[in-house]
């Protein structure tokens, strides 16, 4: 589904990704974890084709990512980057997912409206279609932007930190919603800082710190050695009743 070969990308004076090679199979529901500022968002943007690469090859669904038809990949940005005061309604935001079709008529067609309403109903946000995006709950906001990404029926869905800035119940709901979308056959890639949410909800995890440290099932990947390599130590792993729990290691004394 996704194949990066020897990819280098980054910003001026800051080569974030260097000679990165990564493969993600079709049908995965994978979470990328790693410390802040190590290039997770940059990696997502590279996979989405919106970030220029200096070298290497980014293939998505067997084609160079930049030659894909717009709308082939669904994208949900980090909600913290959204301008919540902008004058748009929920319906208009979802409609934006269809803008790539490049029609020049400003009004949505009947068919598009029906499409939006059906998807909103499926995701449980049909009640607030005419509300301003600021006037709905965090969980609904997440679903609205998810709907915008799904409206073009993509086979790959990419979300940047869908678990941040929402309460634990909402986080739970979002992850379960993603699980069911994954069951419908959509490949899903997310980044997150919540290791426990990954351990309990995601079937696949990629430990990332400038480069791929390890990927596999959480049970196999979340070892003290790999997490130590990813985060630089001091994480304890507690296994209980088949559950994984990652905690700050209080036994090791350290200086702050």
């Amino acid at each position: 589904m996704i194949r990066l070969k020897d990819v280098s990308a980054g910003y001026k004076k800051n080569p974030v990704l260097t000679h990165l090679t990564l493969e993600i199979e079709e049908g995965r529901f994978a979470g990328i974890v790693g410390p802040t500022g190590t290039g997770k968002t940059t990696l997502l943007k590279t996979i989405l084709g919106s970030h220029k690469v200096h070298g290497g090859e980014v293939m998505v669904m067997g084609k160079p990512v930049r030659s894909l038809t717009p709308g082939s990949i669904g994208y949900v940005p980090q909600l913290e980057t959204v301008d919540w005061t902008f004058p748009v309604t929920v319906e208009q935001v979802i409609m934006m997912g269809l803008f790539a079709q490049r029609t020049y008529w400003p009004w949505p067609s009947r068919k598009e409206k029906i499409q939006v309403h059906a998807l909103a109903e499926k995701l449980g946000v049909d009640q607030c279609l005419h509300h301003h995006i600021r006037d709905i709950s965090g969980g609904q906001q997440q679903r609205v932007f998810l709907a915008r990404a799904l409206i073009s029926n993509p086979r790959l869905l990419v979300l940047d930190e869908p678990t941040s800035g929402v309460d634990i119940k909402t986080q739970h709901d979002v992850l379960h919603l993603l699980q069911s979308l994954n069951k419908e056959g959509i490949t899903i890639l997310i980044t997150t800082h919540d290791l426990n949410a990954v351990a309990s909800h995601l079937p696949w995890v990629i430990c990332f710190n400038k480069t791929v440290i390890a990927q596999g099932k959480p049970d196999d990947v979340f070892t003290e050695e790999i997490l130590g390599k990813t985060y630089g130590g001091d994480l304890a792993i507690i296994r209980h009743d088949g559950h994984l729990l990652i905690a700050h290691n209080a036994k090791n004394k350290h200086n702050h």
Partner: protein
Amino acid sequence: MEFFLEPFGFEFFRNGVWAALMVGTLCGLIGVFIVLRGMSYIGHGLSHAAFGGAVLGYVINLNFYVGAGIAGFLAAVLINQLAKGNKIKSDAAIGIVTTAFFALGVALISRVRQFTKSFDAALFGNILGVTTVDLIIIGVVLILTVLAVFFLYKPLLFSTFDNEAAKVFGIRTELIQLVFSLLLAMSIIASMNVVGVTMIAATLVIPASTARLLTDSFSRMLIISAGVGAFMGVAGMFSSYQFDAASGATIVLCGAFIFCVVLLFTYVREKIDTHQHMHRHGGVAHSHPHHHDGEHEHTHSGHTHKEPDTHSHEHPHGTEYHSHEKEKGPAK
């Protein structure tokens, strides 16, 4: 009545009113994007740069629009280049580039005194200054802008809302950005003689900000902003004639007045017109002060009825729903 009709006897006034009407509409439309992108600085900067170019053009015998156009374009390119490097933020870049152009214009004017009179118009706007050529140029720019806003409505909306995401969703954001920069530069240069360099930034920002207070819808904001712009242009022209004051100043004063009235109106509406009752968003019933305008369905505990649209909430909804009071019964 005569008070309003009398000035129409003069051709210069008719020209002035037409120009102000079109410039107001134009600035109203363009201003929406300026305000929503938070780039009012650019309007201010480009107009000052264009002024420098116009004066320089005058000195070396170039047409006003040619001089202003070249300087405006150069300034835009320079700003872009400076801001691309990481060390200088774009507001500083705009400050440096455009004030330098402006300073050049001022220096030239003060050296060659006899220009002072005719450049008053460019600085503060002048009702007498509008020629037929000006009218045609303003008209053409207005038509181009209306066409662009209509046919590029979707990509303009998306890239104004979230440029990064728009790019991922297949919008050609760089092209849209370029088209918008061109429209902005043309609008500023076309408006310069009527509104004046020093007043353009305000003319761009006032109608859009007024419209933002009145609506939560992007398309309605465009229409209201254009309307407010047109109205303040015409009202400003009348005041300019009646009080014999610079038209740029009177247009901005009229705009500021309208803005204040609307601000007061929305404040009062918020206080008086908000009501509280149980209603639903999504799945959960809750209650909080809000008001309505436009048609909308409200589902209350037990029954559904048509009720006006936009919810203006007094407190933002955080991550949790909460309800404060018992249902007071159906609204209105």
